[in-house]
């Protein structure tokens, strides 16, 4: 019987890399642009609607606009469509505010089986948490830089 040996770890890693199917960057970027753009276009349309028909100003029309987009995203998440959209559109579905709503809604849905308080309440920010933490941290750093700049100049 022939004695066989496993390949070296480094050469196997190289071998594994060549087998990996690559996602086409061009298609992915185009899809993200299309879907992300359409979501933003919808947002712009909603904003005009709130300004024209509901008496909002340009400044505060973004509030009902975001609320509507969040509602639509939560609805699509609950109906089981947003994950499919995300698979197709990639960042186009995750970067807009609808993506943020999806992280919270999907986590809330998932943890419903563990109860409202410890399940939904305790886990709802599990995926969204990092976005909030680093959003606040980076806002603080930018504010700090701005303040120091204004003191010096």
């Amino acid at each position: 019987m022939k004695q066989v040996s496993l390949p070296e770890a480094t050469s196997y890693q190289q071998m594994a890399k060549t087998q990996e199917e690559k996602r086409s960057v061009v298609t992915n970027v185009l899809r993200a642009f299309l879907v992300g753009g359409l979501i933003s276009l919808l947002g712009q349309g909603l904003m005009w609607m709130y300004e024209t028909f509901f008496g909002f100003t340009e400044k505060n029309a973004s509030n009902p606009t975001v609320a509507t987009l969040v509602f639509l995203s939560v609805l699509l998440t609950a109906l089981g469509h947003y994950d499919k959209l995300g698979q197709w559109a990639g960042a186009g579905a995750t970067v807009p505010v609808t993506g943020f709503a999806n992280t919270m809604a999907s986590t809330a849905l998932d943890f419903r089986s563990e109860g409202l308080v410890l399940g939904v309440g305790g886990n709802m920010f599990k995926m969204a948490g990092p976005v909030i933490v680093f959003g606040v941290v980076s806002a603080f750093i930018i504010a700090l830089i701005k303040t120091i700049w204004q003191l010096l100049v």
Partner: protein
Amino acid sequence: MRQGRTWVFLKRPGIIAHVAVGGPKEKEGPLAQDYHKVYDDVYLGKKSYEEAERQLLIDAVALALRQAQLTRDEIDVFLSGDLLAQNITASFAARSLGRPFLGIHGACSVSMEGLALAASLVDSGYALRVMTGTASHNLAAERTYRYPTEYGAQKPPTAQWTVTGAGVGIVSLEPTPLIIRAATVGRVIDMGLIDPLNMGAAMAPAAFETIMTHLNDLGRTAKDYDLIVTGDLGKIGRNLLLEMLHKESIPFEEERLLDAGLMIYHPEQEVFAGASGTASSATVFYGHLLNQMERGLIDRLMMVATGALMSPTTFQQGESIPTIAHAVTVERMEGS
């Protein structure tokens, strides 16, 4: 009897009952006819995915008992494991079975781990009848290991789709054409791969090592087998396994070295690189493959269940993926 690292069973322990059950997506796949029961609802009418996974195993256990015309009390030991924390699916199914139970773990390799142990317990006389099996559920695995089930993150083409299903078998010395000949317990192999969304590539070397050990210990070549079937390497893992075999110039036929992860779904069912999960090897083996053996279409089969032994914690701590594979040879014996 020990032969190298391989256990050779002399008293002809056999599989006297075998059951596979599948979920709604599995029902749409090419092996639809091979399941003993299929479900249309991913929840199986239960409140959570964990409960649904448990029900898959409980149902498969009941069907196996019925098939062998046994009562629960006639099972000496139940060997089972699964993918959820603390092996809850196996333990809770054992609770309803009410028989002596050993929880085992080997990630997706657990189906053959259980069968090898079952055969050795029966062969050595410590048990007359051993039941072994496992279940996995796509959505229970998703929420445990990846993201919330409705989360819109994009998965790479290297990812795999966890099978919703269960496979159960009963091993004893009673007459059956399905004889368990030998088993090789795998070593833990780690090639330093770190991507949990490309587990097929991580597991292929473990499959290679176990297959070669099994063949060498038994003094056989791949050509002595009608089929060698790996558990859940998927497209990428299988390609890598074939490449390793070619590099070592091992003679084999590609169409006789299959992967269960590539048999469960049609290509248009969009499962990325293929199926995975403990039920990948278990449903294909306890359903399709043993059915084919009973019909006389396969005489000698080597089933190699592969498992990735990392957890979300080890992955986040930057560890690589340790993997394992266990092989069992089953032979068809007329009139035994």
